[in-house]
């Protein structure tokens, strides 16, 4: 019996704890304090503090890739623009809708969906709640973009063109490689941008560099990426560029083992293999995210459109660590090419058709 009493006592304590929780829930002072403190900072620049949140895809916020980069962009906005940002991680595909719903209830001014996997959910949410602003990374709704939504896409073909040029100029064997993840609009742009960069180098420097191309058919299979890269190096390629997410880790691993050169993607991947990664085709999602927040803050939210970020906006580039391996004269040339791209003298192709067109103009 005494045991029963003990258990009962424990239960009572537990119930009381819960009651206390309930009270603190009803009492709003706790919640209101924090935003109030931070609004002071916000007040300096603007009357009202903007609340922003982002919903990640299943990669999570620390994915070493675009989710992480987007969150860095929002944190920078918090610091510079006095906004208040939060994130919500998705753990499975079915979380997208419920997370967007939660974000809506938290009375955010701008809600980000990170990655094209959320495109359907973001569009549905935007159409239903036209008083809230939505934005999505890596997806364009084209003419169907709701007025309160904006698509943010990147010209990944531009940095790919630059690294293609570098690869062709530095190749001693006359063969370079490209390892793609899965075929999609984004990866195709990396692919043909790179091809075009090699073709351009062949033309201006009178070379005959060939490109080997293969897809890993997965973004999360390093073993496959390694196998492909190994076979490319054996076929005589001495520089391989990958746009294959996690599978690309295997490509870099292969380069390390065979002591060959490799080119990274999305972020500066120099730290993964300092002796082998000569440069990276960087896609700064954080810059894109930051700029949209800034536009919203200044009342210029580009709703109903798709914003395209390229070299001009500093949202794509080659890695700052490129000078460690790439000779200075090539880097100087790259700077010139950047100007040509920004001025529109070079129109970098992004798919098969535009690539064919481009190659014709070189002849």
């Amino acid at each position, binding site marked *: 019996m005494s045991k029963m009493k003990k*258990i009962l006592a*424990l*239960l009572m304590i*537990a119930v009381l*704890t819960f009651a*206390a*929780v*309930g009270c*603190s*829930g009803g009492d709003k002072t*706790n*919640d209101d304090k924090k935003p109030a403190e931070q609004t002071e900072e916000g007040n300096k620049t603007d009357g009202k503090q903007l609340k922003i*949140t982002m919903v990640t895809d*299943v*990669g*999570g*916020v620390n994915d070493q890739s675009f989710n992480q980069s987007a969150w860095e962009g929002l944190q920078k906005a918090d610091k510079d623009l006095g906004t208040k940002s*939060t*994130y*919500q*991680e998705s*753990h*499975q*595909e*079915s979380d997208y*809708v*419920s997370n967007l*719903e*939660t*974000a809506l*209830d*938290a009375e955010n001014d701008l809600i980000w969906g990170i990655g*094209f*996997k959320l*495109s*359907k959910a973001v569009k549905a949410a935007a159409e239903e709640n036209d008083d809230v602003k939505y934005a999505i990374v890596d997806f364009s709704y084209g003419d169907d973009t709701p007025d309160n939504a904006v698509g943010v896409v990147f010209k990944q073909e531009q940095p790919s063109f630059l690294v293609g040029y570098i690869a062709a100029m530095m190749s001693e064997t006359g063969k370079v490689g490209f390892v793609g993840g*899965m075929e*999609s*609009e984004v990866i195709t742009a990396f692919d043909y941008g790179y091809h075009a960069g090699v073709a351009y180098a062949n033309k201006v420097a009178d070379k005959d560099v060939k490109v080997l191309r293969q897809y890993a058919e997965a*973004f*999360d299979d390093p073993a496959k990426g390694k196998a492909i890269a190994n076979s490319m190096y054996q076929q005589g390629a001495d520089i391989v560029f990958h746009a294959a997410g996690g599978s690309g880790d295997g490509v870099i691993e292969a380069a390390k083992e065979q002591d060959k050169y490799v080119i990274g993607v999305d972020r500066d991947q120099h730290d993964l293999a300092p002796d082998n990664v000569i440069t990276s085709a960087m896609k700064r999602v954080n810059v894109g995210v930051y700029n949209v927040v800034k536009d919203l803050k200044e009342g210029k939210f580009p709703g109903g459109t798709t914003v395209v970020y390229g070299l001009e906006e500093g949202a794509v580039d080659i890695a700052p660590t490129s000078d460690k391996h790439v000779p200075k004269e090539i880097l100087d040339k790259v700077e010139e090419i950047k100007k040509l791209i920004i001025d529109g003298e070079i129109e970098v192709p992004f798919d098969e058709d535009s690539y064919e067109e481009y190659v014709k103009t070189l002849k």
Partner: protein
Amino acid sequence: MEGKRLKFTIISVFVGLLVGAFILLAVGFNPLEAYGVMIRGILGKPKYISWTIIQSTPLILTGISVAFAFRTGLFNIGAEGQFIIGALVATLVGYFWNLPPILHAIVAMLMACLAAAIWAGLAGILKSKFGVNEVITTIMLNWIALYLSNAVVFWDQFKRPNSEASYNILESASIRFPKTLRSISDFFRAPVNWGFIIAILVAILIRHILKNTTLGYQLRAVGFNSDAAEYGGIDVKRNIVISMAIAGALSGLAGAVHVLGVTEEVAVLAAMEGNGFDGIAVSLIAGNNAIGCIFAGLLFGALKYGGYKIQPAMGAPSEIISIVIGTIVFFISMPKLIEMLTTLRAKRKRGGEVESK
């Protein structure tokens, strides 16, 4: 007996919350505030309640699946793979077949059950024919299911262009409540569907099978002591296959209900989503009781749905929230786990007496 178990479980829940509170306190967040956010996130609005139910539904069904296999002395770690197969088949039937409403949904669910039953039955056959441990085969079948599903989603006829997901199921296969109900209550803003009711009916049916039928008696006898059951004239091998197949069908139904009611498509999976693995925890919390799985599933679903709301509300890193939720689950399941492991070991080793309940 039942009452004691219930008390045990409730105490474990509070111990879990308490330890979780200490972790939050240790990293500098007010646990009362955090749990307040969580509880408001679960019960604060009618639509939160409906979301909790929606999130719980597949967990209830996979929980019953694991519990059912456990009653026959089988550890079904393959609920995840069976869930994936069920979801895939339900989507295929839901998209490619043209059938009248209601019938379409029922056919899709039955086909999903059938496919997942065969899938899990494979593990059962391997166990009964060759003595291959079902833990190993079901884990391996999980991976095969994952990649099979991805391969099928990449099939041109099935994949929605410019996406990493399949086409949506046809309207006729949907088991959602009509959208017009939205005007009645906030509750219906979430994709509320028949899944929860189906799960409750299934729980009652499974309880009935286990308690009141010859089949259920045989299955349980095999679970208590397979040697004694064989001596008593029960075909142990056949019962192992049947038990796995039924467990598979239940997980497959979970996948079907999730697709037909919530996602309406299957996406390329980079990793396992955990609906089946969480089912193991649900089954543990429920003490392998089918009816208990309803409440355990709701508890688990609520923790998952409400718990992750703490992160944006308080700015705590999501890892901390995952640790807290993990700790709570750990404590909830632990007493049961220990209790069960000891009894299972004793049964497998010595072959104890057949318990009668």
